[in-house]
């Protein structure tokens, strides 16, 4: 175990946990202020959920066009050390003087040698056969992969759950990936590495999970291929996605698209009482995209209430309706098949009539929820969880980035569901709070 730090006279460093837009923004701000940052990300690349999105509401900016420059900045910043494919394994100490153990998982690829050429993935036996998480399972990749072309760092990783060699101990006579690699970067002898860093402040930016609509079997997700989630819709709509932006499910172009709001949000029966805050506008945006990409298609949005509270949101909602997207009040209850079509059963609550609406594509606006491992993360950093399961801030109004543990701050959706502008603002606030803490540490160090 090697110790690296900024203590003993050197400027104190910060730890940022989670490499989504919240973590990237917090890391950039702290680094720009002149402090060293360790940015730890569990997956092979930074970018997080925002990297999966096509356009962002309400301005329709291309998500990766605004995210990628920040990812690149974070990757190149002299004050940021990226620890991707890594997890925090232990935390001790206190504000100004934390010791953090970090587990670096083996990529089985030497990151210093890998040039990201992709020949290994082409050669892999499982090429095109492993579901791609980044593409929400719509596309398949190899067992050695970069999650997406703009990945930072742009190096390959062997998926230990898919790789034939790693799961079965043997992959033919020779390693196809190894043979194909011109840089001799593939190294199956790699093992887990542990490093320890000393930091003065910690920003937790671990994000959220997306609701699994299989928990509402009456909606038929996972059973009818024509029922997809908003996240999957993003991948279909993305020009750089697996269908190159073509919205086509099961080989045909939908003519009757139904969006269903609040799937896994505002739902006490699932223990998910909160509003996810993004779905109303995400659906408005997707309805716009559907209208745009599927000329002549009937687009219907079923909703309970429309929450268009952000800057430019109501205007965007107006625009989408005026384009011809039909909003019907009533949250559908079930989906079944009749011949070639799906039938969405709902009540139009404004008419007071029960109806059956035909659809050949149904998009479920899946909610945001606390991450599955929130308990472990809470335990690691001493965080509290609120009644909604998200990490509890010190005060709901005056201290939304303070965790209650001095020196540990919250950024983004790990504290509660947020859209991108709110997440960025929250991350900047967390960075600011962390910087105050770091500046104090610096003063104390100087005084000692």
């Amino acid at each position: 175990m090697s110790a690296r730090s900024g203590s003993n006279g050197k400027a104190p460093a910060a730890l940022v946990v989670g490499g989504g837009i919240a973590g990237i923004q917090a890391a950039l701000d702290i680094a720009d202020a002149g402090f060293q940052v360790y940015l730890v990300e569990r997956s092979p690349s930074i970018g997080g959920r925002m990297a999966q999105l096509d356009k962002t509401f309400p301005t329709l900016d291309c998500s990766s066009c605004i995210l990628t420059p920040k990812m690149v900045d974070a990757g190149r910043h002299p004050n940021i050390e990226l620890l991707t494919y890594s997890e925090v394994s232990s935390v001790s100490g206190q504000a100004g003087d934390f010791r953090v153990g970090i587990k670096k998982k083996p990529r089985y690829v030497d990151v210093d040698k890998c040039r990201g050429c992709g020949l290994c993935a082409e050669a892999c036996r499982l090429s095109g056969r492993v579901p791609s998480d980044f593409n929400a399972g719509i596309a398949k990749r190899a067992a050695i992969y970069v999650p997406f072309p703009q990945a930072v760092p742009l190096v390959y990783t062997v998926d230990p759950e898919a790789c034939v060699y790693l799961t079965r101990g043997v992959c033919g006579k020779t390693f196809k990936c190894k043979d194909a690699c011109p840089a001799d970067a593939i190294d199956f002898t790699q093992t887990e590495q542990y490093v320890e860093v000393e930091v003065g402040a910690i920003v937790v930016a671990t994000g959220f999970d997306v609701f699994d609509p299989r928990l509402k079997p009456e909606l038929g997700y996972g059973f009818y291929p024509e029922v997809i989630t908003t996240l999957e819709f993003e991948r279909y709509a993305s020009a750089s996605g697996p269908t190159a932006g073509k919205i086509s499910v099961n080989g045909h172009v939908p003519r009757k698209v139904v969006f269903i709001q609040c799937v896994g949000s505002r739902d006490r029966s699932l223990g998910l009482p909160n509003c996810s805050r993004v779905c109303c506008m995400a659906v408005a945006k997707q309805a716009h995209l559907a209208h745009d990409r599927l000329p002549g298609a009937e687009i219907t949005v079923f909703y309970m209430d429309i929450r268009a509270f952000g800057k430019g949101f109501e205007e965007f909602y107006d625009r989408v309706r005026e384009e011809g997207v039909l909003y019907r009040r009533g949250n559908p209850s079930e989906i079944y098949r009749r011949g070639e079509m799906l039938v969405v059963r709902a009540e139009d609550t404004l008419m007071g009539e029960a109806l059956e609406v035909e659809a050949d594509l149904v998009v479920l606006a899946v909610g945001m929820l606390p991450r599955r491992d929130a308990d472990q993360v809470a335990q690691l950093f001493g965080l509290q969880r609120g009644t909604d399961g998200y990490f509890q801030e010190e005060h709901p109004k005056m201290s939304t980035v303070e965790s209650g543990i001095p020196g540990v701050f919250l950024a983004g959706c790990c504290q509660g569901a947020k859209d991108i502008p709110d997440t960025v603002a929250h991350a900047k606030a967390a960075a600011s709070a962390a910087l105050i803490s770091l500046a104090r540490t610096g003063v104390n160090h100087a005084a000692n």
Partner: protein
Amino acid sequence: MLQIDSRQFAQEHDLYACIQCGKCTGGCPLALKTRLNPRMIIYRLLVAGNGFNLEGRDELWDCTTCSTCYSRCPKQVNPMEAIIALRSAIVEKGRVHPNVKTALESTFRHGNPLTMPREDRAKWVGDLPVKLMSDGAEMLYFVGCSPSYDPRVQQVARAIVRLFQQGGVDFGILAEEESCCGSEVRRLGEAGLFEMIAEENQELFKGYGIARMFTTSPHCFNAFKHDYPGNGLQVQHYTQVLADLVERRQIEFGRKFEKTVTYHDPCYLGKHNGVFDEPRVALRGIPGVKLVEMDRSRQKSLCCEGGGGRMWLEGTNPGTRLAQWRVQEALDTGAEILATACPFCLLTLEEAVKHLNVEDRLRVMDIAEIAAQAL
């Protein structure tokens, strides 16, 4: 005037939690064919001020208490229970359909809603050697009213006896001492009579020291499980016992039942109690059975329209029974047998098969009957 204090009612039933999303009505199988609109009833109760008039709300009697509304509600409001309570308010004023009156009076007098004499309750047994609880047995087989009296459903009770005796289950019956569980009485709004029935039954069970029981009907199963106050009874539906026997290979099937079978989930087994797997485990364990699923199965199963007292009430739209839609769905699977595990489903579906004139293509059977044919 049939006025109720709607504010108090709304509070008691947590109707203020309702956000008018319409999932209840959107899922309600009756809402597509009658005026029944659970969300609208809640809304009208909420905005009625102090008094809500139940006069002329005949659609309240359309509800089959299938529980789809409750299972879909994101705020855990229970429109079905609210409807049952509204029925109670009507029953209290003595304003009930003559059919309901007859069923309720018969339950009070004879211990069954079918106007059958109590002394005939065990006639279904015939020459089958069945133990009485007074002989001492590990488990009570609570037979239920339709299986005791209805000639068609009696065959199900007899099949269960043959199966479980073969499987080595130590059970007894209460014979003439058995009385209606009260499930339908409660759902028809006769809360007082239900309480009385429940008390008497619990006394009876206590007298025999009964700790474990199984039932023919999902309705009895549900009543003992949820409607009887803290009785400590271990209640199973017979399909749960059967699935266990099949899985442990305790039943020796000597024959094959070589047919394509589709299974209709009874609401009181599935939606009410989440028993989706055991009936399927039992069916798959019967040699020869090829199980195919209808598109609407499990949580999406379509009610047969026999629950909530609807065995005695035509409803406001008797023209098209849900059971007829259901039979059509079963036919679409290509199945030759429509299996179910509920006396009411059995009767309504069989009626629908006759009505649609498809007896040559589809036969309705209880799972127990199918299993017993393979013995």
